């Protein structure tokens, strides 16, 4: 299956890439290509030009500055796994398969915004920010505002995601739980849990859900049930039940809406327990 006829642009610098993308609204940047090339083959998109940005390896980095992790847009899932960023490194392990993780990038995931992608559960739970570059300069937006709808990022022509920023959440316990039926598939339900506990009392709770709405959401009801409470079995049960309030899944080949909603409860519970157990999976 060939992609449709496309033009190909090899820019010498990120500035040139941005300039070309601004002048050609229907051109698309190529990072890892593991969503873009399948979409080309399926004729879901027919861009005039593909603009290669993959070679700008200066955008492949993970660094910690103060309390913030800064992640270059071209950081592959493979590199994310090695970088030990809370939640995101765990989520990276569950993406696709080894070959996909060798190519796919975090910037690609964020710009593509598949509703069932893995990172968004963590990004929303962590209050991630997205750094966007254009000819006019840079702007930093909250991921929750950036993800306007499925496959609909807040990106204008000539704008390129260059960095993702997440707070370090030192002292938090965390877990990413993914339900998948086939190895390497997208999530049926994905849950990211971040907990700050003092003894058995919960000081802060952040729970992100992916694949059960058009975009990733926080399970606010569940968080409310946890914050300020002693962690008993009853509290965990109540919180995971309330997580279902935040899920509005659709029925598809991966499962019925009803099933997915119930799985949200199961995975939130699992996530909380795993986070508390401190077992890194």
């Amino acid at each position, binding site marked *: *299956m*060939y*992609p*449709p*006829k*496309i*033009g*190909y*642009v*090899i*820019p*010498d610098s990120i500035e*040139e890439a941005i300039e*070309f993308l601004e002048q050609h609204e229907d051109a698309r940047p*190529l990072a890892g*290509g*593991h969503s873009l*090339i*399948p979409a*080309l*083959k399926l004729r879901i998109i027919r861009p*005039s*030009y*593909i603009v*290669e940005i*993959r070679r700008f390896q200066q955008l492949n980095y993970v660094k910690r500055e103060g309390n913030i992790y800064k992640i270059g847009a071209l950081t592959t899932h*493979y590199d994310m796994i090695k970088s030990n960023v809370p939640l995101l490194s765990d989520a990276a392990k569950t993406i*696709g*398969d*080894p*070959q*996909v993780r*060798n*190519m796919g990038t975090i910037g690609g995931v964020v710009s593509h915004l598949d509703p069932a992608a893995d990172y968004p559960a963590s990004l929303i739970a962590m209050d991630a920010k997205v750094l966007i570059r254009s000819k006019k300069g840079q702007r930093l937006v909250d991921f929750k505002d950036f993800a306007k709808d499925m496959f609909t990022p807040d990106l204008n022509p000539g704008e390129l995601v260059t960095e993702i920023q997440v707070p370090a959440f030192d002292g938090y316990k965390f877990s990413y739980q993914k339900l998948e039926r086939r*190895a*390497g598939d997208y999530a049926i339900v994905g849950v990211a849990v971040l907990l700050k506990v003092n003894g058995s009392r919960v000081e802060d709770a952040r729970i992100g859900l992916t694949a059960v709405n058009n975009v990733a959401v926080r399970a606010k009801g569940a968080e409310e049930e946890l914050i300020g409470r002693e962690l008993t079995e009853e509290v965990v049960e109540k919180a995971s039940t309330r997580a279902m309030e935040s899920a509005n899944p659709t029925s598809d080949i991966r499962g019925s809406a009803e099933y997915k909603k119930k799985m949200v409860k199961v995975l939130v519970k699992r996530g909380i327990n795993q986070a508390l157990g401190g077992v890194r999976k």
Partner: protein
Amino acid sequence: MKIIDKDQKAKITLKVNGEVHEVEVEPRRLLVHVLRDLGYTSVHVGCDTSNCGACTVIMNGRSVKSCTVLAVEAEGADILTVEGLSKDGKLHPIQEAFWDNHGLQCGYCTPGMIMEAYWLLKENPNPSEEDIREGISGNLCRCTGYQNIVKAIKDASLRLNQKEYPRQ
């Protein structure tokens, strides 16, 4: 900046198994097809949807599915296929291990399995059975002969960890 229009061809250089090739390709041409046309027919087109892994090759040190890489994107890349594994008529230890453990049935997935095993063992020279199964999760064997493939990769890891590679 280099712009290749959709009806133009780009001249690219690929180093495959140490041999340098210059080819002209349309921007939409996939790496898997270019490799096959160059004679590296171990690289199989299976599902053509980034699922099955039959097209797996090592590109610049990492395993990739060559059906999901544009040939233009691979410009200047160093590529390794199964054809490049054996040296002086002697099979690579991974190939020998697949042979000795009957790690193949119809053989269609085998080149992809071997290249993924190559990457897996480079990353993790002493994999557990679970590591191996996770490691080849991007490669499908429709004969479902996974048991012997897993055994072969484990055996290959032992052979590679020894200085010499004795046959069983």
